[in-house]
């Protein structure tokens, strides 16, 4: 069964550094998403991406965040200058056109020191 994959599984960085989180969505999916989950809290929407542009973003997704689909398979989330409060699990998700169900990856745990 096809799955969304994410790398790395765990990223440790220093405050102020740039990080790039990578995702490979399911191959025939056209809608892509990033969510985050701070420890002990619920999953929060960050951004959705379709047809090579952002469809919608939340208040969390400020100028420090950006997304990119650099080739036909990868979907990335970049945080330009990380803050301590960016420490969280980051989940990528994708879905096929015409269906509601989103398929989530296993997540990347980001730790900002």
């Amino acid at each position, binding site marked *: 069964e096809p799955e969304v994959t994410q790398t790395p599984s765990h990223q440790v960085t220093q405050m102020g550094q740039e990080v790039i989180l990578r995702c490979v969505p399911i191959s025939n999916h056209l809608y892509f998403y990033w969510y985050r989950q701070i420890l002990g809290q619920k999953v929060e929407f960050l951004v959705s991406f379709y047809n090579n542009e952002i469809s919608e973003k939340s208040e969390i997704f400020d100028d420090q965040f950006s997304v990119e689909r650099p080739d036909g398979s990868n979907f990335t989330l970049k945080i330009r200058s990380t803050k301590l409060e960016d420490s969280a699990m980051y989940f990528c998700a994708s879905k096929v056109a015409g269906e509601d*169900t989103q398929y989530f990856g296993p997540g990347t745990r980001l730790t900002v020191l």
Partner: protein
Amino acid sequence: LAKTTQPISMDSYEGQEVNITCSHNNIATNDYITWYQQFPSQGPRFIIQGYKTKVTNEVASLFIPADRKSSTLSLPRVSLSDTAVYYCLEDSSASKIIFGSGTRLSIRP
């Protein structure tokens, strides 16, 4: 934006039926009711979706009363592996999912 309310946590034992109820304040006429499941250290996973009455699949049943102001997720004969957080969604569209606060279900032997 529809808001949902669900219990923070529930405990049960293996072999029992578990029912988790969610209230749906201000649900819109054309909104579906959707539940996701999140196992420890994993991403969320779709469980079930319905509009009204009852829906059943291989994992769970979903009961929705006529007024659609609530929904009940029913897990038959739970096992230890059903320990997870169960989310009743506040919003679901092509552009995003808004998760509710979730119910942390703990199953004991």
